[in-house]
């Protein structure tokens, strides 16, 4: 036994900003760690870092990804262990530098070193299609494309899917990066009224398999304000349960997908937690 299965490098990307990449990285990372996996989440948004805030680690950042790339610190010095889940670590981005400080070789070395220590390496990509985003995806085995069910987000996600098939090492080797769609901020009644795209519309345009549907919820904002991934802060809320199911699907379980509807909102009101 003890035959270590190889680590899985996931990139959480979208193209469009503000759709839920950082929220999803934290939520999925925490969910996987809760399920027993050894997880590290990496913030690639150099200069505009948010993952440390959402994880509640902003007061413990000493060294960051850029420091490690430039040899100023060793990787263990920069990794921050989560106080609630011992299997969960964070590698924060720099706030004072910008994406030009990232180098391809530097990122490759960091990911190679992390592969030997963790089961899951989740890269939180910045928005856009430039250096930060392309470096976050470069060494990925698989991608989670986060999309809101509205036209700008869908088109930007389509662009990112095209880039995953050309700007990654796997694509350059002739292999295919596994892509899965995570629909976030889904409003059941807005879709019904035609104010937002339906799940079917989004799937028809993007043509990639669906990982999960996360409903719009106030719990997400509450969780990020207290610095805790939503799956830790309110695990019974509807977004948290969607993220847990998505994490289990990532691990290979087959869980039937259902489209969130109003009734879950009632459940949420009965069992929702308040922010501390």
């Amino acid at each position, binding site marked *: 036994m003890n035959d270590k299965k190889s680590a899985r490098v996931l990139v959480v990307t979208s193209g469009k900003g503000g759709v839920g990449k950082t929220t999803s990285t934290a939520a999925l990372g925490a969910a996987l760690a809760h399920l027993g996996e050894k997880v590290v989440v990496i913030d690639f948004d150099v200069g505009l870092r948010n993952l440390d805030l959402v994880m509640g680690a902003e007061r413990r950042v000493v060294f960051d990804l850029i420091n490690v790339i430039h040899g*100023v610190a060793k990787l263990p010095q920069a990794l921050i262990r989560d106080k609630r889940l011992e299997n969960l670590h964070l590698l924060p981005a720099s706030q004072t530098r910008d994406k030009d400080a990232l180098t391809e070789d530097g990122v490759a070395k960091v990911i190679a070193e992390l592969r030997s220590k963790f089961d899951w390496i989740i890269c939180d990509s910045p928005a856009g299609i430039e250096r930060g985003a392309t470096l976050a995806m470069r060494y990925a085995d698989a991608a989670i494309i986060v999309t809101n069910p509205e036209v700008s987000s869908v*088109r930007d996600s389509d662009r990112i*899917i*095209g880039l995953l098939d*050309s700007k990654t090492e796997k694509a350059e080797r002739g292999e295919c990066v596994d892509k899965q769609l995570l629909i976030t901020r889904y409003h059941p009644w807005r879709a019904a009224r035609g104010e937002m795209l339906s799940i079917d519309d989004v799937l028809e*345009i993007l043509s990639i398999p669906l990982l999960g549907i996360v409903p719009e919820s106030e719990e997400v904002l509450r969780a990020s304000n207290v610095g805790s991934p939503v799956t830790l802060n309110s695990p019974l809320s509807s977004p948290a349960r969607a993220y847990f199911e998505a994490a289990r699907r990532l691990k290979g379980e087959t869980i039937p997908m259902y489209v969130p509807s109003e009734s879950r909102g009632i459940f949420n009101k009965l069992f929702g937690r308040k922010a501390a």
Partner: protein
Amino acid sequence: MSSLIVQRQTLKFRARNYMAFVFTPRAPIAEWLMDLDATLERSRSFFAGHAVALDLSAVRLSPNGIAHLLASLAERNVRVLGIEGIEPSDAVGLPPLLRGGRGMQDFGPVEPDPVPASAPAAEGAPRTNQQPASLLIEDPVRSGQSVAFIDGDVTVLGSVASGAEIIAGGSIHIYGTLRGQAMAGVTGNRRVRIFCHRFDAELLAIGAYYKTADEIDKSVRSGPAQAWLDGNTLKISAMN
């Protein structure tokens, strides 16, 4: 305390393949410019977003003459990517000299491909000794991707996303939804068509005649459609 060591990286250079339309001016230049104006009158900004290469091998222009020609083209919203067919000594201060232009081979979405830049003829000169050729794309064409195949037809077995473009010397067949741009017959062949399973395009063009989504009748949307040239008019109709 350790000091900050900054490591300098050596740059890696990659070669990339781009498609450009080629203008081959003929003497007298003034008349050639008038012909160009007549073409542009029907589709004013057709070349505006696209790379254009200038082949000056058919004329002998002085450096002043070249500068004047470039200015005239700039006035017409044509931006020259590079020039071929002139002496390197005459090329000082001009757009870069292009080398190795040859007939287009098929290649898929434009991303790293270490082949020297090639440029197709795009102004009506028929290509001789052609093998029948077609490009088959089995995956959806994603937003931002540009597929160009001057030598023949292009067939796509998926959808073409908003923000993507298909450029073909022959016809274009899309067995999915066309949401982007399709430009057929770019080498001047007028007997080409554009077919799609579901029509939702941003722009259609055959040769230099184009129509944007706005100019196309709404009744054709969201169903199978074909586009063709009738005289100088681009026509689109539903196929049922």
